[in-house]
């Protein structure tokens, strides 16, 4: 049983194009049986926030290669990537590195 969690989801580097141009989203994830980790967050984002072209953001059960994920301004690789358990008031940032130069 996971309690509802309130997190800030942010998009940068061009990823916001897939979300109607909105960069910051303050979301409250509802309580559910499975714990809220990044993997489930991605599923939730795909269902509720992603407006178009899911294949440009998500590949399989992870993000598309080329999209960086920062959890509280730190690399998600240091936190266990998809298995990191979300905590209240966390800030998750998705930066697309595939744009510009």
């Amino acid at each position, binding site marked *: 049983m996971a309690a509802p969690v309130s997190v800030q989801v942010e998009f*940068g580097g061009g990823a916001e194009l897939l979300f109607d141009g909105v960069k910051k989203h303050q979301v409250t994830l509802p309580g559910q049986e499975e714990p809220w980790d990044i993997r489930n967050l991605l599923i939730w984002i795909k269902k509720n926030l992603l407006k178009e072209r899911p294949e440009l953001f998500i590949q399989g059960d992870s993000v598309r290669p*080329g999209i960086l994920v920062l959890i509280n301004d730190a690399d998600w690789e*240091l936190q266990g990537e998809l298995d990191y358990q979300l905590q209240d008031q966390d800030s998750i940032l998705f930066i697309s590195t*595939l*744009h510009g130069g």
Partner: protein
Amino acid sequence: MKCKEGLPVLIIRAGDAFCKDCFKAYYVHKFRAMLGKNRLVFPGEKVLLAWSGGPSSSSMIWQVQEGLSRESAKRLRFVPGIIYIDEGAVCGQSPEERAKTVVEMKLILQTIAFPYHIVSLEEVFNLPTSVLQPVSQGPRGFENTYKEAVDGFIQQQQQQQQRAPEEGGGEAVLSDEQIQEKLRQLSTQDPVGQEEVAGDSLPRPAQTTALMTLFSSVKTLTAREELLQTLRAHLILHVARVQGYTKVMLGDSCTRLAIKLMTNLALGRGAFLAWDTGFSDDRHGDVVMLRPMRDYTLKEIAFYNRMFGVPSVFTPAIDTKAPEKASIHRLMESFILRLQAQFPSTISTVYRTSEKLVKAPRNGDAAGAATARCLLCMCALDIDSTDSATAFGAQTLERLAQKLSPAPVLPTGAPGRPCCTKGTRLQPGCCRDTRPSSEREEPRASFIEQLCYSCRVNMKDVPFLEPFPPYILMESQCRSQRAWEKQEVQEFLFEESEEEALHPLGFSPQF
């Protein structure tokens, strides 16, 4: 963990964790090491920074700014300027969106105290043909000249310190003043510079239409991207020449260059990889293109920009939201990135391979001065069109076979009656025009002859020559005219041989 005390915030490569401060030191050091190792930027030289608004070029400008403002011993020593090219027309942006983007760009450019030039891509229609003519650079002994230049510069600074120690502040302030004053002068010239090159911030609608006609006539996204890169390079080169910049810094990162290397192999540019992906690109002769960011992965750049607040503006590009198989560039990008996700040493391996590529001149040519250059990409023509075993030779044969079938069309003048008087300039279609009929009727055939292999392959996707900017068409005509004239007078030219070098009249004197 490098420093054992800070909190790790990021992992680079296979397992190096960095804390924030260590990462900053590492990042800044890499930039200066890249410039210092290559020793190509001389003190006091004018360097143009190409800014697209994206993260890599923004980071590059930020590093240059930081580097110029340090204490004098370790300070970067060149004089920068920035160029931004507005490509909104080919990326499907409306004039209002373009104006808005330019305003955002200007806001950032004004916080950086370098002179800047905002140019729209439509300016390619005003370029002169000199852009396509490489200027040969005299030979330079690099090592000694660089060291001498740096020593001379330091000496000059010290002399100035000694000359006026009583003028307020400390000696350090005075030597700083030198560069700062120069920058300030350039900044005040800025509005003039902008007017000279760009005119108003928005181009004339006729030119925008012409540009969009050109790009929409190209059939594939691959060819469109290549064309865009070519035009962009020409425009940057022209601005650099006009404004007196001798070096241009491009913001290509390690990731991008690895992708570019593989893409160029697929496009048939294998012979020019050293120029396309190396640190320095001297194909234009007088203006050298540098890539100081080539050691940074996109991940490092994105993290640095986020952590240290480097401003960048997102603008849609020509391939935004394009599906994966839309062009060779996109396909290669997704291939490399996906491979990198599973094998984290992919990009660094490709990068290290590209470092080993050497620019070798062709056999027997002295500094490439005599070789013909491709009309569009200005690399040495790697052609041996008589050898049918190569892809190149096969292309040439295929085209000749097509030409043989239609019957030749008679020239404009009726047979027997001259259509011009002696002494007038020969026009295509004139009765005196003795070129083979294929070349006469089709400027396209002679245009293609002047391109390298990959540019020719790209031209397959461009059905019409007319939408091209005038400087390209004019230069093509000029070159084919010159080649034909040379052929015509070939038999009358004296051939150089050993005896004739001694006896210019061609015969040995009788005594």
